[in-house]
């Protein structure tokens, strides 16, 4: 019973974390129509930003406060330099260019931060654990990570429901062509959305850095799992990404316990099952 409870906790916490990464990916695809293979690199960027900034500020939350805007600005830059040339081009060229970006980011990471794994300290006031059974405790910081993800998710809900930018995003979510029909300056919207996607992925990488340690290639598994989430949830759907991520988180957590031999296959099998039942994902718009 303990195990089930703990796995629910783990699954939810893991799911919430992937949700942050996946929501950026789904927005960028849903609104910009861009397949961004380099999304995992932005998760990595967040982790390394947190490493550097925490070493200066001494606190993970201060570094988040600085790091997320930095990541946002970096996203604007990348959009301006590369991504904007891809609008309306076919998927293949997007795949090619963003794959090339991975190569570049990985090399830059190694040149700037080196190949060693690093650690980001958990703030001392959060270093405690909650006792769950006589030998096992659950670290408080993990609960904080989950809380932080929920907080960001709520921020997103607010932005999407109550702001003008959110209105445009909603329009784009249901139909990409709508954005242009509404006469929105799509250049600005696109740049904002892309940068927001980068910032979300970086936020996920940063908040997870104290529990995950920071090392080269940290973003790659995140990329693949985010894609799975986006597909399960339905492209462009934030709601889909949310439930998809939780579903994947739980499937992963329980797969490991109940089907250890096939743990790594479980999430993909789940995805195949969802797509057979509903080829546009759980909350996808009709194609």
């Amino acid at each position, binding site marked *: 019973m303990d195990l089930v409870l703990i796995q629910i906790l783990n699954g939810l916490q893991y799911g919430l974390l992937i949700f942050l990464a996946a929501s950026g990916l789904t927005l960028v*695809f849903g609104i910009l129509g861009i*397949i961004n*293979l380099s999304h995992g690199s932005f998760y990595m960027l967040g982790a390394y930003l947190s490493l550097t900034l925490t070493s200066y500020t001494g606190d993970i939350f201060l570094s988040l406060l600085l790091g997320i805007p930095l990541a946002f600005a970096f996203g604007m830059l990348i959009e301006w330099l*590369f991504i904007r*040339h891809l609008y309306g*081009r076919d*998927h*293949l*060229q997007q*795949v*090619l*260019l963003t*794959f*090339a*970006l*991975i*190569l*570049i980011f*990985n*090399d*830059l990471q190694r*040149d700037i931060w080196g190949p060693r794994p690093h650690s980001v300290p958990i703030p001392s006031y959060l270093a405690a654990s909650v006792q769950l059974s006589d030998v096992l405790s659950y670290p408080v910081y993990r609960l904080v990570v989950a809380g932080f993800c929920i907080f960001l998710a709520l921020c997103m809900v607010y932005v999407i429901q109550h702001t003008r930018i959110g209105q445009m995003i909603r329009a784009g979510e249901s139909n990409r062509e709508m954005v242009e029909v509404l006469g929105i300056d799509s250049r600005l919207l696109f740049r904002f959305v892309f940068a927001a996607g980068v910032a979300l992925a970086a936020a996920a990488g940063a908040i997870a850095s104290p529990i995950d340690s920071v090392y080269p290639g940290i973003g790659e598994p995140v990329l*693949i799992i985010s*894609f*799975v989430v*986006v*597909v399960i949830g339905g*492209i462009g759907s934030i709601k889909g990404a949310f439930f998809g991520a939780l579903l994947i988180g739980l499937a992963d957590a329980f797969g490991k316990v109940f089907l250890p*031999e*096939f743990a*790594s*296959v479980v999430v*993909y*099998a789940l*995805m*195949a099952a969802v*797509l*057979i039942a509903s*080829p*546009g*994902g759980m909350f996808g718009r009709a*194609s």
Partner: protein
Amino acid sequence: MLTRPRPLVLAVLAALLVAALLIPHLGGAYAVKFTTRVLVSAIFVLSLDFLIGITGLVSFGHAMFFGLGAYALYFVSPESQAANALIAYPAAMVLAGVGAAVIGAVAVLTRGFYFIMVTLAFGQMLFSLFFDTKIAGGSDGAYIYVKPEVALGSITLLDLDDRNTFFYVCVALLVLVYVALLALARAPFGRVLQGIRWNEGRLTALGFNTYVYKLLSFVVAGAFAGLAGVLYATIDGYVTPDLFGWRQSGIAIMMVVLGGVGTLFGPILGALSFSIVEEVLKTESLVGPIAANWSLALGILLIAAVLGAPRGIAGWLEPKRAAVAAAALVATTREQRAAKGKAIETESLSRAFGGLIAVNDVTVRLAPNRVHGIIGPNGAGKTTFINLLSGALRSSSGHIRLDGEDITGLPQHAIARRGLGRSYQRTNIILPFTARENCLIAAQARHPEPMRFSARRFLKEEQAEVAYALKAAGLAARTDTTAAHLSHGEQRQLEIAMLIASGARLLILDEPLGGMGPEETGRVTALLRDLSADHTVILVEHDMDAIFAAADTLTVLVEGRLLAHGSPQEVRRDPEVRKAYLGRFAESEPVA
């Protein structure tokens, strides 16, 4: 549509072939091995281009079939004896092909981005399977101790352990695979695949079961990827689960895009140049300190390539085409065709969307060889009605009969095959193809079975149909112009020509006059009248003048219900129609 390569392309390919054949004589042992790898990559990316560039299925998991082929050699090789390549290689293709059939059956259900991701996921799944379990050596991979040989009975013909022999085998296989895939892409089977790449909906509406076509192309591509895989395993006798990984698939896509998607020869050049660039960038003695940052340099080069030359290397060798010269066509005559229109009737046909009943209990019979107009205010359910007739939508209740046969609930392509063709509000043709090529694919819908690998069997019949259709639609002079270069009106005519060529006997045309000027309208109206000699024509149209002039009968829908049905005069006189819809229009016209 894919044409035979231009002389310039052939010259480049021939030069490369000669250069390749000289390598064992001029280059050292390493040059031979390096080129062997490039050849194997080229076969692999060729198979991927068949999928991406011909059929339009962007697979991000193609390496899984490469991996299956490689592991097949491991499975069939005895511990301390050479496997026979004549058995091992086909076995690899079969294993990869079967794998592709199973995975494709699911993957092909999806499209676009979903397809990319599903194939990626399947690749990762196979990777995990070979990595986590002991079925073939586990995570560290496995050895094939003795390399295969080509043997007949007990006589060894070729020992593939000899790197020069194997090199020539790879050259021969690459040429063979290129020729085979080019032929396949240009065969009737491949033409349909090319059509699917650009406009799958049109192909379905013409009567092709595109699912089967896409699945078959997935299997073909998978089998050839398996061939590349087994060759890879032969080079060094080592297989590893990482062969299935997404990076392998990703690099293959790079090579295809770099070379030029959908050209088949382009990816060969892509594989060659990508391999050379990577090799050079990684060699310290050539590039100095850049070698330490080779992946950064490679990334920058790739970005420059995609932004600077979006059509890849092939783009430099082949211009974009506006028209294609081709042999003249001889048309059949109407008498020779001796075709007749088909009748369609509905019985209590209804369709609901949630609470909204878009088509409500419509019973009507539309007689053969007439022009029937369907009119009604916006939201009357006209488009839903014709979507039901053509099978694009399923009815909630009621029946549809085509020439007496109940076609209710049949898939769209099956209904199309029974002689029902339709056009769309937004012109639905294959823009990069010429008018002739568009019609040729349509004509092929008369024999839509996928296993057509030779054009010869129905060549005469189909070409005659194409000529007839183009002439009937008034496009004889524009036969070899690409559809994208036709005027709007001509594109609509082309769509009608495609329906005629497909052998449809009942044409459902959704606003065929939309966006046309008065002169074009007159021309197309006359064309439709003329068509009714051997077709039944159903029109949905907003242009009242035109439809009253063109139609033999009118069917009036209002809020999903059948309000009236009869000749234009009867409908015009109908008080219900006047009240509900025609109102001002009827008053302004003298009643005949």
